[in-house]
């Protein structure tokens, strides 16, 4: 389920070989491959000035972008992963966890909490793609459920921001079961008529798309975000054909009726704020 990550890193390796980009000053766009001035990208909420591609942003930047400054309070920050399968491939899962925790400073791939958006309280969950490809294991599943529980308890809207390669293989069947857990959690919100808004960012795949991400009352996506069930590489191998150019981009999903709106990052806060006002 985490196919996409692989594909991307392969691309990135290739790019690094071809074009030497000076560290720091310049950035290479993941989508149009243009070399762009880093400061300009950062000024525009990490959006490519040439093609409007939305670069991945950190959890902290995402929270600042969506919530009123300084209003975020994190919930259950100490939840950490276990290794119930004693999983080992070329590396031990426990080593992978440790490496990810050290490089990201996070316990796992999701941060949840509450804050205000133009004064209105919401519950918020944000994936951290940098932590093992934003994969969903027991901790991510539990945090999604806790965010939904909190929204239900406080009777405030839930907003989830997704970037994920899918279920975390290293937790095996327990990862798969997080799909059922998170879907059940948002179904309790639906029964209580608590609004739930999902923001799908690049990339969102596998068990995350096929559970709580696609179950929101309103589904927004960032421009050009890749969103799907199966990763492009798996599909290509299955059908033995090249995929259409804009396949699985947010624009493709909008055209096929799978999402409500594509919203540029700069307009996300006002859009979510406006939507929340309707409920």
């Amino acid at each position: 389920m985490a196919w996409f990550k692989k594909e991307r890193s392969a691309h990135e390796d290739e790019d690094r070989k071809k074009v030497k980009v000076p560290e720091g000053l310049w950035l290479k766009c993941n989508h149009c491959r243009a070399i762009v001035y880093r400061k300009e990208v950062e000024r525009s909420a990490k959006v490519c000035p040439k093609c409007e591609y939305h670069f991945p942003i950190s959890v902290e930047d995402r929270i600042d972008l969506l919530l009123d400054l300084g209003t975020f309070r994190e919930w259950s920050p100490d939840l950490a992963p276990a290794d119930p399968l004693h999983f080992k491939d070329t590396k031990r899962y426990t080593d992978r966890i440790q490496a990810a925790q050290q490089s990201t400073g996070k316990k796992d791939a999701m941060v949840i909490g509450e804050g205000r958006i133009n004064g209105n309280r919401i519950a918020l969950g944000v994936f951290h793609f940098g932590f093992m490809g934003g994969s969903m294991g027991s901790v991510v599943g539990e945090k999604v459920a806790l965010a939904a529980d909190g929204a239900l308890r406080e009777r405030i809207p839930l907003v989830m921001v997704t970037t994920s390669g899918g279920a975390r293989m290293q937790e095996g069947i327990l990862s798969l079961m997080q799909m059922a857990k998170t879907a059940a959690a948002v179904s309790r919100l639906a029964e209580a008529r608590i609004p739930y808004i999902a923001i799908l960012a690049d990339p969102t795949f596998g068990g995350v798309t096929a559970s709580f991400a696609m179950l929101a009352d309103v589904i927004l996506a960032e421009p050009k975000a890749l969103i799907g069930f199966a990763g492009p590489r798996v599909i290509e191998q299955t059908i033995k054909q090249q995929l259409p150019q804009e396949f699985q981009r947010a624009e493709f999903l909008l055209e096929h009726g799978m999402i409500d709106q594509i919203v540029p990052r700069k307009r996300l806060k006002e859009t979510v704020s406006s939507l929340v006002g309707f409920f």
Partner: protein
Amino acid sequence: MREYLDFEKPIAEIEDKLEKLTAAAQGRPSAEDDLRKLRTKLHQLQAEIYAGLTPWQRTQVARHPQRPSALDYIGRICDSFQELHGDRLYGDDQAIVAGFAKLNGQSVVVIGPQKGKTLKERMQRNFGMPNPEGYRKALRLMRLAEKFNKPVVTLIDTPGAYPGIGAEERGQAEAIARNLFTMASLKVPIVSIVIGEGGSGGALAIGVADRLLMLQNAVYSVISPEGCAAILWDDPKKAPDAAEALKMTAADLLRLGVVDEILPEPPGGAHRDPMAMCDAVKKAIALHLGEMLELPLEELLRRRTRKYRKIGVLGGE
């Protein structure tokens, strides 16, 4: 023709000998003794081999072309069956069979992917890999079950949801997600049995249940061993290692608290004695449905909610 798996070679040899000897003996009492000995040896060998199967070998048994399918079970254990077709939105997906059935006089809705046995049927059924319309047909029938207060029985055997262009265009992810969402609070009992291969989200999409049972040689995993090996080992030939690491056998899932009961298979696997397997499955469904039907609805739903709210293993600080 019986099909043998690689590790079944010793069994194949004895069965071949047994067949020849039986033909040669033509009822001569002097040969009876040899035949009896050979049969005993066969049973011992079978028990031995099957007791020591590796997870990868078990995966082969779970995918055995002659393993009983959902339609085999339905045909044997249901008194009557009316298949219902179509999702009323796009088409009819033959990778999933669904309909009303009578089981010991009780009306149920039964749903199961079907891989197909001949090449022609396999193509027709897309090798048991459903498209969104298959999941939406299943959803439509679950809603019917709820409307008429009939329990749902699902028989799981699929490599997974189909990864294709059309499947993505028509919302494979949404179709699966919607089923998880709906089954979480469906107001009738749900019993699911993994009869062969439980392939990831494509299996879970018909597998959110009050009781989850698994046949002894069935497997159920977040990803196929081949897929996992390709990603984590960068080498599809490491599938046996991945099968081991993924903890995907019935015994593993029971230990992890995901499965409620394992149904033992006849010696040599379900395909060696499909009738006995069907009868065992029928008995198990009747038992679990009986228990579920005695519970007040609120209690049934409370238990289902608690079960899925708790699932997962968290670490310490």
